[in-house]
């Protein structure tokens, strides 16, 4: 059975990588689009995002994608949010002076502190950029075959503190414990970039392509 994956294209940066990685993970039919009909016809939806959240959400809403995404989530279509895509699903972000987000999950995205340091006093750079381990806080079909504490690629200055959400599916430690992934019903979202996380990331995408949206 051919399954279509829609990657939501709201004009904010490079979707080429997400598309290539989905194909590498086994997707045969990937459409990159903002078109409501195309998105609603798809069997699964990827909501990527890079850059500043205010601009991302403004474009996302201007193109009508918010309504489309709400419909798709209500219908039970499996959805994967990535990076700013994940942050956009939260209630609010402190970025750009404070932005109301889509509110699929409770919780506020916040910035790593200025002069951030580890518990032993080591200076920690921001953005949190590079490969960090993800501790799986619960079982989920998207973690199938991926070792606990596997490395994934992160690049972000804002994050969802782990205690902000009851839906944390995985966490990272960077002086502070942050949400690496959140999950509820048919929505799974990652702060890290699976499309840039080599074998572990491709495995997660392959799991997403098989996922029926239940957990």
């Amino acid at each position, binding site marked *: 059975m051919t399954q279509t994956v829609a990657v939501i294209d709201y004009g904010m*940066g*490079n979707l*080429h*990588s997400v598309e*290539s*990685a989905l194909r*590498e993970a086994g997707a045969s039919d990937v459409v990159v689009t903002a078109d409501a009909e195309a998105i609603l016809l798809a069997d699964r939806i990827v909501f990527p995002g*890079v*850059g*500043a959240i205010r601009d991302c959400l403004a474009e996302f809403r201007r193109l009508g994608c918010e309504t489309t995404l709400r419909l798709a989530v209500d219908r039970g279509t499996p959805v994967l949010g990535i990076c700013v895509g994940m942050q956009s699903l939260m209630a609010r972000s402190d970025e750009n002076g404070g932005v109301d987000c889509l509110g699929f999950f409770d919780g506020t995205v916040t910035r790593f502190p*200025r*002069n*951030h340091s*580890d518990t032993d006093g080591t*200076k*920690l*750079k*921001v*953005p*949190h*950029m*590079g*490969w*960090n*381990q993800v*501790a799986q806080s619960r079982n989920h079909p998207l973690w199938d075959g991926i070792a606990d*504490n596997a*490395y994934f*690629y*992160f*690049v*972000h*200055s804002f994050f969802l503190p782990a205690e902000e959400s009851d839906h944390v599916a995985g966490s*990272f*430690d*960077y002086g502070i414990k942050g949400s690496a992934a959140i999950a509820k019903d048919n929505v799974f979202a990652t702060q890290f*970039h699976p*499309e*840039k*996380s*080599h074998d572990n*990331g*491709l495995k997660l995408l392959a799991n997403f392509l098989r996922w029926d949206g239940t957990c």
Partner: protein
Amino acid sequence: MSLAKRIIPCLDVDQGRVVKGVNFVGIRDAGDPIEIARRYNDAGADEITFLDITASHEQRDTTYRTVEQIASQVFIPLTVGGGVRAVTDIRRLLNAGADKVSINTAAIFNPDLVRESAERFGSQCIVVAMDVKALDDGSGRYELFTHGGRKPTGIEAIEWAQKMADFGAGEILLTSMDRDGTKDGYDLPITRAISDAVDIPVIASGGVGTLDHLVAGFTEGGADAVLAASIFHFGTYTVAEAKAHLAQSGIVVRG
């Protein structure tokens, strides 16, 4: 658990072929960039940097095509630099599949390019590349150079790094022009000074000859990532050997 230190093989690309100079002259051919990038992706490299060292405008289309081809086969972050002059160049490279774009000379002539592109595309994809040389006046100061280390700018390196971080750069790629191609090791004092002076990650570059040089880049230089070309291109060491050596030295790497 902590953030792994990164190893970044660098592809210096001239007219579609990977080359590596010694002190930026005497170029040797090391092959096809797409093949090499794929090889590093499979070998466990943490990122790949692609520097277009020809970067004449007539040949830019070759670069975009190469970036597209690499990005479709490589599932780790890809940084592209060389000849980036304007916001439109950055947009095109990001659209071609670059995850980060490295800005060097253009940042010096137009620092607002860094601010503007960080605001537009996010700091996470803006790398400022700095080519530095130690001043031989005994001051211990370092100056920024352009044009492959040929033209001095009069700009002091540490102040520049801080300014670029303030302007929204997400990372600094620091190359020592004194060390590049020498295999004598990174210039550790300036690497340490800049890493301490800014809150954004710093990549050490220029001069790697041994695996202990990589270790020193992290321990003494305080770098967040190390960049190397020749030692990997010519098979002196594999990425796996480099990671094993770093791990033995107590440095956290992605296995």
